[in-house]
């Protein structure tokens, strides 16, 4: 059973619901929605790397951490406000992605998972041990809330809208990427790298680009999280976080943009609801990953109905089918 529920109309409906949601919902749910938004961005960032370029990255949480710590460190030493630190977080996380991507691409395809895992752990270790910079396991705290023109974002609702804007941008970004010449090249690389390069596609360059972009997006989420919680420590950016992100992408279907949104929502909300069973969280994640691969590898929404979705292309095909 394939569920193709995201037509243009349903996206609009979803957006409108998201827009008015905080007006009716109690604080707790707005907070929940904020976190779901952060995870949607994170999951999409991993979706870009795995779904578009086929690179199994087990260290995505590290880029999340780099973005968060960029803001944290800039605040700690220079009191740099959020909106100034925001682009730096993205850029620095992206640069980290670029630097790590270079050696990652040199290794055999099958090893990428373990190498990225290693890099993730190494980054976490650096964050833990470079205490002069990061205060180590104590973390950094006290970042001021984001301010524009003197108006500070303080309430949960305001943070929610910030994240909503970013989620919309990210989803738009992903869709545009997916339906472009770049997207075709990436999917070609993911499906069959040798064929792709035999068609003249510069596989290494494009894989590196995906890695960099994915890292940048994760960094962006990190910066926002740091601002909201006003406290960060290396603990939240380790292996288990990366695995959870992987599971979100798996639930949604690798490369499936709406699916991954749903996957992020499910994998965040369900454990929240079943708080008493938090001990069972990780084992369920493991089980889910196995089960999905065995029974529903396309993800929870089933096979994406690929209509040829390019704007121009759609018009041409329609013209041709007219007698």
């Amino acid at each position, binding site marked *: 059973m394939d569920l193709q529920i995201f037509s243009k109309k349903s996206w609009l409906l979803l957006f409108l619901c998201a827009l008015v949601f905080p007006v009716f919902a109690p604080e707790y749910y707005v907070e929940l929605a904020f976190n779901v938004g952060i995870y949607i961005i994170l999951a999409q960032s991993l979706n870009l790397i795995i779904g578009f370029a086929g690179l199994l990255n087990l260290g995505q949480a590290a880029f999340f951490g780099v973005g968060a710590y960029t803001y944290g460190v800039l605040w700690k030493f220079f009191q740099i406000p959020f909106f100034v630190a925001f682009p730096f977080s993205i850029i620095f996380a992206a640069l980290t992605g670029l630097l790590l991507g270079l050696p990652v691409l040199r290794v055999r395809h099958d090893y990428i998972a373990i190498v990225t895992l290693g890099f993730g752990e190494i980054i976490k270790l650096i964050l833990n041990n470079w205490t002069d910079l990061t205060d180590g396991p104590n973390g950094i705290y006290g970042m001021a809330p984001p301010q524009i023109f003197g108006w500070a974002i303080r309430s949960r609702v305001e943070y929610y809208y910030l994240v909503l804007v970013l989620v919309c941008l990210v989803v738009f970004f992903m869709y545009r990427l997916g339906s472009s010449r770049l997207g075709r*090249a990436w999917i070609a690389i993911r499906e069959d790298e040798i064929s792709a*390069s035999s068609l*003249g596609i510069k596989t290494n360059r494009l894989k590196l680009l995906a890695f960099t972009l994915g890292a940048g997006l994760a960094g962006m989420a990190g910066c926002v999280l740091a601002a909201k919680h006003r406290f960060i420590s290396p603990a939240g950016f380790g292996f288990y976080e990366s695995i959870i992100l992987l599971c979100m992408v798996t639930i949604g279907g690798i490369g499936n943009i709406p699916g991954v949104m749903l996957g992020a929502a499910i994998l965040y909300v369900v454990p929240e609801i079943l708080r008493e069973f938090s001990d069972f969280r990780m084992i369920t994640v493991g089980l889910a990953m196995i089960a999905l691969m065995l029974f529903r590898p396309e993800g929870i929404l089933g096979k994406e109905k690929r209509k040829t979705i390019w704007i121009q292309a759609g018009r041409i095909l329609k013209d041709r089918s007219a007698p």
Partner: protein
Amino acid sequence: MTFFEPRRRRYLIGKKISKVFGGVRALQEVSLEILRGEILGLIGPNGAGKTTLFNCMTGIYPPSAGQILLEDRQLDLGGLKPAEVARLGVARTFQNSRVFSGMTTLENVMAGCHLWTRAGLGGAVFAGRGTRKEEAEIVDYSLELLGFLDLAPLANTLASSLPYGLQRRLEIARAMATRPQLLLLDEPTCGMNPHESREVMDAIRKIRDRGITIFIIEHDMKVIMGISDRVICLDHGEKIAEGTPEMIQKDPKVLDAYLGREEDAAAIG
């Protein structure tokens, strides 16, 4: 080639190409010439080194010795990476079906248009007029290629749902999308019935008529003898014969090589 045919220019020269894997000598000093606009056939029993030759020519791995020269550019293809080779105008298909199964037929061919188009990250995100124009061009060109190979009605079908024979044809369309000057086809009629094979033969002739040089590996002797201008025969990594189809069919060394492998004996026409 008769006396009256205009002398074809050389497109590619292979000089003493050798390839060694561990202890196995897959290719031993194979020299060849590919002339512009011709259809050159490559035959030989299983394991003769045919696909190895293709792989050396297209950068899958470098030759252990020898040169593969593109006349025009005085460039050695040996040692280049596959993407670089493709960008120099040499495209290929593979022995197994390697279509992009997650994409539609049209998208597969559009992917082949990558190397002569430019839209990048900016184009993807902002989709400005230039990008949209380029996308339209890509769609048009791809549809044209699909029509050329009689795949147009299947444009929006997922490539994995295509029957095997059509998948192989799709691969040819996709390789053509790169606007190559030389097209290497690795057993394009593998697994096809005689009717399908004939369709592929017609398509190959049409491709040649468009000005593309073709180098084709085949086991089906009817196909090779039917469309090739010249044929090269390999055995155990060495070139053992070269000439027109008529000459090759009578060449004792060729018959020897094939009769030595029982399963191919019946294939000789």
